[in-house]
């Protein structure tokens, strides 16, 4: 009985793994370059920013909310790091400032959503615009580039066969699985989305937990901002725009419900890999990037429709 229920619950993840396997087989057959460590490392590297943003988003969506600000908050924290380094602050202090900047966005998002009870869609839409505005103001609209080697390491350095972005995303996946599955914080994130009022009546400080979920998402965005800025050796004020869409897509594809209460870190991770493999494959088959946008959009739509139908069935 328990095994059957587990399998039923894992259905979206199993389906997704099937799709990923199918993609890998088809792409291996159609291109000899696909099935190589270099290409696989490339996919992991390119997916790392999506994974970082999507992991934070998984907790937010689990709690019944949404965070549209992650892409721009990532760019903003990168800009803050760049400005700090250009002002001759050390790499460590600059990174810390970038994290603080992102955290304050998470805190404001969380406080407004929890205590003022504003719709999270509207709240994070506003903070997305604020983050973008601040990034443009700080940079004067021009990218800041040229950082020290010790900063660039976080985007392009090598750690054995992998690099820091891949390492970050793997660490965060493991931390995410632990938090979601084995801790009170993860359980309450899901409970907030399942029935927040029930959680409140059980004597839990729901506003505190809800706020912390947005803070966590913002910290994930700061990590993405660090990786993006270090990798390109430049902080572009509009770097992360529309990344929130990819993150939301991955979370929903990974089996989460838009209504909250159901989400899977492993599912999000597999979804990010699937989208990464798909992008890689489309590029290898020389499909223009505009079409890739079209495909991603269609996949999101299909995933959301399936998710809705599933939650209606329940």
């Amino acid at each position: 009985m328990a095994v059957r229920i587990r399998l039923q619950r894992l259905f979206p993840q199993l389906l997704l793994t099937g799709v990923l396997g199918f993609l890998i087989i088809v792409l291996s057959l159609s291109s000899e370059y696909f099935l190589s460590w270099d290409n696989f490392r490339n996919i992991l590297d390119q997916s790392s920013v999506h994974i970082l943003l999507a992991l934070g988003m998984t907790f937010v969506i689990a709690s019944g909310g949404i965070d549209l600000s992650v892409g721009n908050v990532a760019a903003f924290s990168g800009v803050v790091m760049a400005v700090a380094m250009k002002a001759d602050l050390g790499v460590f202090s600059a990174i810390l400032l970038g994290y603080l900047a992102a955290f304050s966005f998470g805190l404001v998002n969380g406080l407004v959503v929890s205590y003022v009870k504003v719709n999270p869609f509207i709240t994070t839409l506003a903070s997305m615009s604020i983050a973008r505005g601040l990034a443009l103001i700080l940079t004067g609209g021009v990218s800041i580039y040229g950082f020290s080697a010790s900063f660039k390491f976080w985007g392009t350095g090598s750690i054995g066969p992998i690099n820091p972005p891949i390492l970050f995303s793997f660490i965060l996946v493991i931390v995410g699985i632990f938090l979601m599955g084995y801790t009170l914080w993860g359980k309450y994130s899901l409970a907030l989305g399942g029935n927040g009022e029930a959680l409140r009546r059980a004597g839990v400080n729901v506003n505190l937990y809800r706020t912390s979920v947005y803070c966590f998402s913002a910290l994930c965005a700061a990590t993405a901002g660090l990786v993006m800025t270090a990798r390109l050796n430049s902080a572009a004020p509009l770097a992360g725009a529309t990344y929130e869409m990819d993150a939301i897509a991955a979370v929903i594809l990974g089996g989460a419900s838009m209504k909250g209460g159901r989400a899977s870190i492993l599912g999000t991770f597999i979804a990010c890999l699937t989208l990464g493999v798909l992008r890689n494959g489309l590029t290898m088959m020389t499909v223009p990037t505009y079409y890739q946008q079209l495909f991603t959009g269609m996949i999101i739509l299909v995933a959301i429709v399936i998710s809705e139908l599933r939650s209606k069935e329940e």
Partner: protein
Amino acid sequence: MSSVQPFLQVRGIAKRYSNIEALKAIDLDLYTGEVLAIVGDNGAGKSTIIKILSGAITPDSGEIIIAGRKYSKLKPKTALDAGISTVYQDLALIDTMDSASNIFLGREHRKHFFCLDDKRMQQEALDLLQQLGIYIPSLYSTVACLSGGQRQGVAVARAIHQGGRLLIFDEPTAAMGLKETATVLRLIRGLAEEGFGVIVVSHNMEQVFKISDRICIMRQGEVVDCVKTSEVNPQDVVAMITGAIDLEDFSIYRSKN
């Protein structure tokens, strides 16, 4: 009545919603070991007083004395800590989670600081459900998959697990079949005999007379009277709910009989 001092004393509790006086300074006592039924028509203020006692809403004035301690308002946590557990009409279950998670909601067992002790919670949930005679087909399935009575059972198990001395049931059998209703009523009666104080809000006169020791009749935000169940009959209570008999008439009626 097991003790002279009431476990719960409600004194002059009032609540208004803009123009509507939902509660007009009501008084209420509850002793441990008894079942007090609160009856009244829609809008009489039953739900409002229940919500105030469980900490879901705050009253405008008055005080609540629980086991000798005075409170001017309660939050869900203070109500729970003071010993009041509520089984809400909507049950307040998290549909996407399993029975054990719902029973332990807000009081989860932990190990090594961070980790949830799922094994221990599942075992204790199983023991508790068995002890209460509540049958759940699978501990692993989400409560959304359970029947109305089983869901009620999970909500009751949680209220008992919360360790309250006073349990409040808001329309406990509203969504239930005959057999399930009988089980829940037996459960409520059993709880009072074990020394819990129980408040039941119900529309069903037959049930009220079957399980309650006292009946508290509310009308338009006021407590009309609190009577011993053995001293009245259902027709009188219905008449008091609708206002066909008022208080003075009823006192005369009682002194005659």
